[in-house]
């Protein structure tokens, strides 16, 4: 389509420090007319606090309400979410976040519920959470779930700790090795290391799945378990999963399932049936709670068999019609956070599953897989692009393509392609991941995008690849149409210029930074 190119808002919005006034407050304390009375009766806080008193107001800029609304509205106009356009970040499952979920959680006044309210006064909420746990256990083929972990990585940490404690309790503390494929999410090795494991990296075989010989070789008396995503980060289903599970179990190890990638199989295939013992799920990915620019999420952890005893506590139990939190913790790993979990995203997940039912979830999974393979069909054969690992095999929720030929032939990299996509008003895919694919673009449309959006996206990508062969310099210069041009990462990270707060900036300007 001809015409002017897409253009993001460029507000050059000042920092709050540059528009606010530390002495200004438009804020009226509730019932502040009481305070003079109380102060007359009790004396001044500053006097009572004595040495503890701060002495002056903190140096925070104050904005009038309309100024604040304007400031943040402008900032939102220089931001991009699923509500703006497609965000096909692979492994991030950026599906549409139904507004009805926002409405319902808000209508429930969850923001007014205190975590220490007596259980009798939150029976409705507890029933919803109890049902959610049952549904998630059913979808994963597990026995029980703890809703406590606040995000996927916390669920992973919980799962890794459960595996650690399980072995320790059996007198096998020497099982201190966690196997992690080289295609795994970075959180897997990081979580395993936090739980005290030595991470053993498993190479990916030529087919793009776990190398069975390497697995065989890695297994032994020190094996605590294996952390797998299936379908893996290449979007390929580990077709020998049953055999893998058997081998790991025979060696005395356990299987951990990274549920970040459940979207292509939910309602169709269950981790429990594949042989996994512990699973975590991302409610903010698969179950449509919004990502919020990086959180809050919810990272439910589920287990089966004897691993249930190790789940973080409390768990919800039911006696007759009454729901209650059970703190029984004979073997459990304890708590992974205070209170019960990130209730707001959990409830959005609850309403999402309630809305769709098993059939709807299944159809969503199928459509996400159809969308992935449709995209592959649209970009396959484009000059400069290749599909590494079993290019003919169907992918599931996501696909990883490589622009290594493009990079070799034109110097235009995956990062340049990503920036050129931004210039067209399209969010880029995940880039340079998984690490086993050079110049990787990892693409996941989810079921939320209709065919026309995928067609536009594929056309834009093809156009960029073509342009790279004619005018590579222009792509090196992208983006031009976003709120700022390409950011300077060297300046951002250099010891002399690194600035993690405005306070650092001011101190440096004044020559006061040590």
């Amino acid at each position, binding site marked *: 389509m001809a015409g002017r190119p897409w253009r993001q808002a460029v507000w050059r919005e000042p920092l709050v420090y540059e528009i606010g006034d530390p*002495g200004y407050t438009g804020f009226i*304390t509730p019932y502040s007319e*009481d305070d003079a009375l109380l*102060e007359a009766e009790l004396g001044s*806080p500053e006097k009572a606090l004595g040495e503890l008193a701060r002495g002056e107001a903190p140096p*925070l*800029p*104050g904005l009038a309400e309309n100024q604040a609304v304007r400031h943040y*509205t402008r900032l*939102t106009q*220089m*931001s991009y*979410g699923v*509500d703006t356009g497609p*965000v096909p*970040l692979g492994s991030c499952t950026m599906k549409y976040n139904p507004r009805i979920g926002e409405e319902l959680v808000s209508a429930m006044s969850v*923001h007014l519920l205190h*975590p220490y309210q007596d259980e009798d*006064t939150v029976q409705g909420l507890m029933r919803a959470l109890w049902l959610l746990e049952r549904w998630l256990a*059913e979808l994963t083929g597990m026995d029980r779930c703890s809703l406590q972990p*606040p*995000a996927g990585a916390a669920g992973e940490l919980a799962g890794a*700790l459960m595996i650690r404690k399980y072995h320790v309790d059996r007198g096998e503390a020497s099982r201190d090795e966690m196997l992690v494929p080289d295609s795994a999410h*970075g*959180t897997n090795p990081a979580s*395993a*290391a*936090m739980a*005290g494991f030595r991470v053993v990296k498993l190479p990916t075989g030529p087919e793009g799945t776990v190398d069975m010989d390497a697995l065989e070789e890695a297994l032994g008396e020190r094996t605590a378990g294996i952390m797998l995503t299936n379908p893996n980060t290449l979007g390929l289903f580990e077709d020998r999963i049953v055999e893998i599970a058997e081998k790991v179990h025979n060696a005395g190890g356990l299987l951990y399932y990274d549920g970040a990638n459940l979207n292509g199989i939910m309602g169709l295939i*269950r981790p429990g*049936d594949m042989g996994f013992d512990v699973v975590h799920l991302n409610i903010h990915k698969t179950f449509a709670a919004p990502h*919020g620019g990086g*959180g*809050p999420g919810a990272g439910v952890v589920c287990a089966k068999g004897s691993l249930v005893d190790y789940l973080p506590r409390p768990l919800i139990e039911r006696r007759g019609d009454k729901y209650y939190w059970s703190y029984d913790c004979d073997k459990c*790993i304890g*708590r992974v*956070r*205070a209170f019960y979990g*990130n*209730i707001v995203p959990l409830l959005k997940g609850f*309403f999402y*599953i*309630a809305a769709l*039912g098993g059939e709807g979830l299944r*159809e969503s999974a199928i459509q996400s*897989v159809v*969308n992935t393979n449709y995209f592959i*069909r649209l970009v396959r054969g484009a000059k400069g692009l290749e599909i590494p690992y079993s290019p003919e095999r169907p992918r599931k929720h996501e696909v990883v393509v490589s622009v290594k030929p493009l990079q070799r032939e034109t110097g235009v990299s995956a990062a340049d392609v990503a*920036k050129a996509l931004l210039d067209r008003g399209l969010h880029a895919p995940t880039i340079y991941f998984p690490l086993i694919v050079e110049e990787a673009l990892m693409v996941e449309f989810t*079921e939320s995008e209709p*065919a026309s959006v995928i067609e536009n996206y594929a056309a834009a990508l093809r156009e960029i690849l073509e342009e790279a062969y004619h005018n590579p310099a222009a792509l090196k210069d992208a983006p031009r149409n976003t709120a*700022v*041009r390409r*950011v300077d990462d060297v*300046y*951002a990270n250099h010891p002399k210029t690194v600035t*993690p*707060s405005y306070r*650092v900036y001011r*101190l440096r300007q004044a020559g006061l930074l040590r």
Partner: protein
Amino acid sequence: MDKPVHWVPGIRDRVRQLEAIGVSSVYELYSDVPRELLLDRAPSVGFGRMLSEEELRRLSREISSSNTVFTGPPPFTGGGWCPHWVPSIVDYIVSRGEFLTAYTPYQPEINQGLLQALFEYQSLIADLTELEIVNASLYDGSTAAAEAALMALRVTRRKKIVLSSTLHPEYIDVIKTWLYGKGVEIRFIPRREDTYQVDTESLDEHIDSNTAAVIVASPNFYGAFERDIGFLADQVHHHGGLLVQVFEPLSLGIVKPPGRLGVDIAVAEGQPLGLGMNYGGPGLGIMAVRWDRKLLRQVPGRIIGLTRDAEGERAFTMILQAREQHIRREKATSNITTNESLMAIRAAIYLTLLGGEGLRRLARSIWLRSHYLAKRLREVGVEAPVYSSEFFKEFLARFQKPYAPIHRELLRRGILGGLDVSRYGAGSGREAIFCATEVHSKKDIDTLINTLVEIMG
């Protein structure tokens, strides 16, 4: 499928898509999955069918009808989580789709607004605490404390963490869980019975050359401020360890910030900063760290930094990513990825609406209301607080009779009372933590007291 499915617009494209892909059925796309693993029917979740929006609304109302929202007077329940006023525009701004439905800003050029808001959050917390390095949020106060412990272990390469026994019991549990695999010794400093502050005379028994950090809360679980954080800091530093303070963000409107007291890492629950109560989650894990290059490299989580773009214009981006899991994998400073960004933005909006002066006024109000509540409780024969220390919004009260029956009677009259600490094996069954904040009017407090008089006779 010929009927529509919620939020799956491609259903109508599917036949055309499959044809283009070159398969005759969707199941060909699952042909590599062992047959025995494929469920032959949809799992039994939800209510056995799709629900319309109208049915979902009914479901939500039904769930709500067996929850009680305490608004007569708001809850007087303490325990590290209290009711606070949430400005209307906080909810409005964070419901805007560009923030709400964004991912972590991996592509900085198209997400400058989100990055700037998070940088402003970090900057506001830095000025509030007078500590220069702030990350873009952790999960909650408890996990921020656990991350601080892990950070101290890395920085000092030592193997012992010393906790104040007056930390929130759930924080202690969380720290123990997170350190489980690390083979670390955890010791506790006892509290003084008269002040509920750490017993500084026993410090020498607990802090030594193997101590990575001492973690102390001020105000602590029971509401008491430590008398002299600076002295604690000196003692810990003398042995080469780090001092971690768990603080309460609103209190910094009137009390000295951790950065002025020699604290190395300050962590807090950001729930009071415009988040609402959310039945305990999401919260906001605040972490602020003293300016030091060695510490900077060991901070967990995302950090947003100020930089410039190719034309020299001001820009923002995620910095020091080489600390993080997606690059450093098992050697990362933490596994955290998704954090509480939107909650951090809530806190930033909240703080800029108040400004420094507004925060000071708010903190004074909270101090006054909570001290009024304590005074009124004393007038009716309740020991409040049970210690001689200063407190801010929460305090431990001791009744003359067991608290549980009193709590039940309050509840029967529509009032949510204090947190019975016997739940954590503390006290004698007569103690509870109460809070009063800006949302409690003098009249609310008088109502509580009058009701207590009725109950206690």
